[in-house]
């Protein structure tokens, strides 16, 4: 287990009102403002996200987003990585909280934070779970259903603030989502792991999720892939995933089958096993080439193209007992 922190917004979604950053309402300044990690209990506006015109009576909303490719997640205080680079089996536990630094006369009574359940849809106001501390106001993310990291990354969050008086003012900064995570280690079984397979051959992945969910992979929340082609499931249940080796994998040779979690059970990718996709028809006339470091075969497409495959495991075991 460890701790994570998502603290770098990368985009501005819809907004109402005249929000501003350091000087202007440009998105870059708004982002810089909400990402500003300077814990400043004194200055009201400088470098923070705020409504440009104080006492603009009304309710003002701004949404922020993350993305899967930017380095916005810090695990255990380490340098930030992207969602796509999360370790295999990554999953957040149910204690995620959203914290935003806030300054101004409009405190929790006038402002609310909302987790988005879609880029344009926010949740109800998040419960305020802590007072003003050195790190700002703390709001808990909904406990049920437990958002996945993918939900957080894909949906972002929003700030809604209501001004009722002429002097109302709020400034926001250092928004972050923190919590604890774990790396799940799941078991599964692949029918032809490490073996040869042909185009059109049925590959079967099995799990015991229905019996042992804590230690088994839920096959309904993964996408399988190989570099050579798109895998389309024939059967996909919690315990069973079957697919046919796609035509595009003809001649592909050694392939790693990868399962990518959708964030429900885990995030990131896990290698399930390897397959060596056989050439379906490389028959023909060949020449031994001295010094050649790999074998070149006619492509199974029989169109004049060729495919290079490494020489199968040159091995010599000596006369010593044990090789």
């Amino acid at each position, binding site marked *: 287990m460890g701790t994570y922190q998502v603290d770098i917004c990368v985009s501005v979604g819809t907004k109402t009102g005249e929000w501003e950053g350091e000087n202007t309402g440009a998105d870059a300044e708004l982002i810089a403002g909400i990402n500003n990690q300077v814990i400043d209990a004194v200055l009201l506006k400088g470098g923070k996200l705020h409504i440009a015109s104080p006492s603009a009576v009304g309710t003002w909303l701004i949404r922020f987003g993350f993305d899967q490719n930017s380095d916005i997640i810090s695990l255990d205080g380490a340098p930030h990585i992207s969602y796509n680079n999360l370790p295999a089996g990554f999953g957040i536990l149910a204690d995620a909280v959203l914290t935003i630094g806030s300054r101004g006369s409009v405190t929790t009574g006038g402002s609310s934070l909302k987790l988005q359940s879609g880029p344009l849809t926010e949740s109800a106001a998040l419960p305020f779970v802590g007072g003003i501390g050195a790190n700002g106001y703390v709001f808990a993310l909904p406990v049920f259903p437990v958002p996945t990291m993918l939900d957080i990354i894909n949906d972002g969050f929003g700030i809604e603030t209501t001004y009722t008086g002429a002097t109302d003012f709020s400034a926001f900064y250092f928004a972050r989502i923190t919590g604890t995570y774990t790396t799940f280690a799941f078991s599964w079984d692949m029918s032809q792991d490490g073996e040869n397979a042909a185009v059109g051959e049925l590959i079967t992945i099995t799990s015991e999720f229905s019996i042992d969910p804590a230690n088994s992979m839920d096959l309904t929340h993964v996408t399988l892939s190989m570099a050579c082609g798109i895998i389309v499931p024939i059967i996909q249940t919690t315990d069973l995933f079957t697919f046919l080796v796609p035509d595009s994998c003809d001649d592909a040779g050694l392939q790693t089958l990868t399962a990518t979690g959708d964030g429900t059970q885990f995030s990131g990718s896990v290698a399930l096993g390897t397959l060596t996709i*056989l*050439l*379906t*028809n*490389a*028959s*023909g*006339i*060949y*020449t*031994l*080439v*001295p*010094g*050649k*470091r*790999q*074998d*070149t*075969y*006619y492509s199974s497409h*029989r*169109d*004049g193209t*060729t495919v290079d*495959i490494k*020489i*199968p*495991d*040159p*091995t*010599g*075991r*000596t*006369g*010593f*007992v044990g*090789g």
Partner: protein
Amino acid sequence: MSNLRDHQSVVIDKFMGLWARGSKEETPMDHFQDCINVLAGTGQSFGTRPGIGISQDVAVPLEDIRRIYNYPTQTGNTLIVLAYDQGADEGSIYHMVNATTVFGPLLTIEGMTDFAFIPIAGRAYISPFSTFVVGGLNVEKGLEDEFLYVYAGDGTPARKAAGVPLTGNMTIANGAAGFTDPGLHIFAFVSETISGFLAEPGLMETFTTAASSSVSFGSVSASGDPNVTKRHLVATKVLPTFNGDLTGYQFFFVPNATINNNTDLFLNNISFFDADLLDDASHLFDNFSEIPAGAVLSIYHNRLVLATTFDDISLILVSAQGEPEAISEIDGLLVYPPDGNPVTNAQELRDILYAFKRSKTVSFTDNGDVPSSWPLVTVDTALGTCVHGIATVLDSGSSSIDYLIIATYQGLSLFNGRFITPELSWKIEDYWKALDRDDFRYIQIVNAPIQKWIIMVLPTRMVLVGNYSLGMDPMKIRWFPWSFEIGFNTVAIFNIDEIILGGEL
């Protein structure tokens, strides 16, 4: 290298290939108890085997390759290839001239899963065969109702070897002033194909010549075979009596009496004396007009040797000297004592023709007379070989240097008139004997003296290489098995030292 106390370090600096004899613990330190896809390097080192590359640089390469032979033509070194379509059960033969030029199919025959081949004077003689199960035994023999074919090497389809006589009714009359020995003669014409085959005399007619007249012939039929290029006049000497049997007398070629085409219908004003008739033509009556297909083709003393026809698995047909298509049905036969096993191979070595069955070897020696008179000597009653079990050398197609390298059930052996023991494969005896004997027909061997390799395709469709750079000796030869993504069926050498493999998935 530092030594541990009470331990002596062992340096392994020689790698002598695979050892597969007895238990693994008995493997000598300088051998591999197991190896794959490695090859001897310089000295006694080893490294990764060489990779393979494609041999054809065309948009649609040949596929499902069953057999390749090196085919030396008048103009260069080429390959002749059998591709077998399993779905249609058809074998098709192609002539691969180079990486970008392929002629064919030259010949497509249902059921042709393999073929025998011998090149003679730039032509390819092809005999289709297959494997039949006879009494539980796999027997390789010529296809039923199939024949020996000849291919000219020029891309035109292969045709049946030999040929049928001319048919029709010619007319004969006295020609211009000339000379003959007056009296009754029988005249006929012998067609000659482009490959030099002389058919038996046809268009036979009797005529009584006059002393001071030549003889003229009309309505001399052209042959229906477009490969006929000449028609030669043959005649008997004067017959004092005639019993009505046109074929019962001796014919001779008439000098200077040839129609040098297959179109003219006449030959006029031929004069000759009986004393001029020296070149016998009667033997042509005994020749096969269609030579049955066999599983074996070879050359001995400039004679074509064909064995193992569909109907006679112990029969060897031998042609006249210098005439590969002229095989006498009477005395062009060698009989290998029948024992239910087929003749599998035949090869000349040091002036002797050796003929093999799967576990027997005999020899025949040309005594200068007709083949049926050649004496048979039993060489070995326990060892023989399979259809492709004799190594071919370089790209000559010939199998012999001063010895033969032969695959027997015992192992891969040198043969110099007898099988030399221990066999070359002595070190890998267990590996060899694990091969399925019923599939020995899949073995094909080449000897590449430049690389000093013996390369074999095995029944497992893997390749076994014997490096004899340290000596052609059972102890010094180094064996290395190789595997590939596809199974290989055949091996040949091309352009002196280029090793060709043919396979199917």
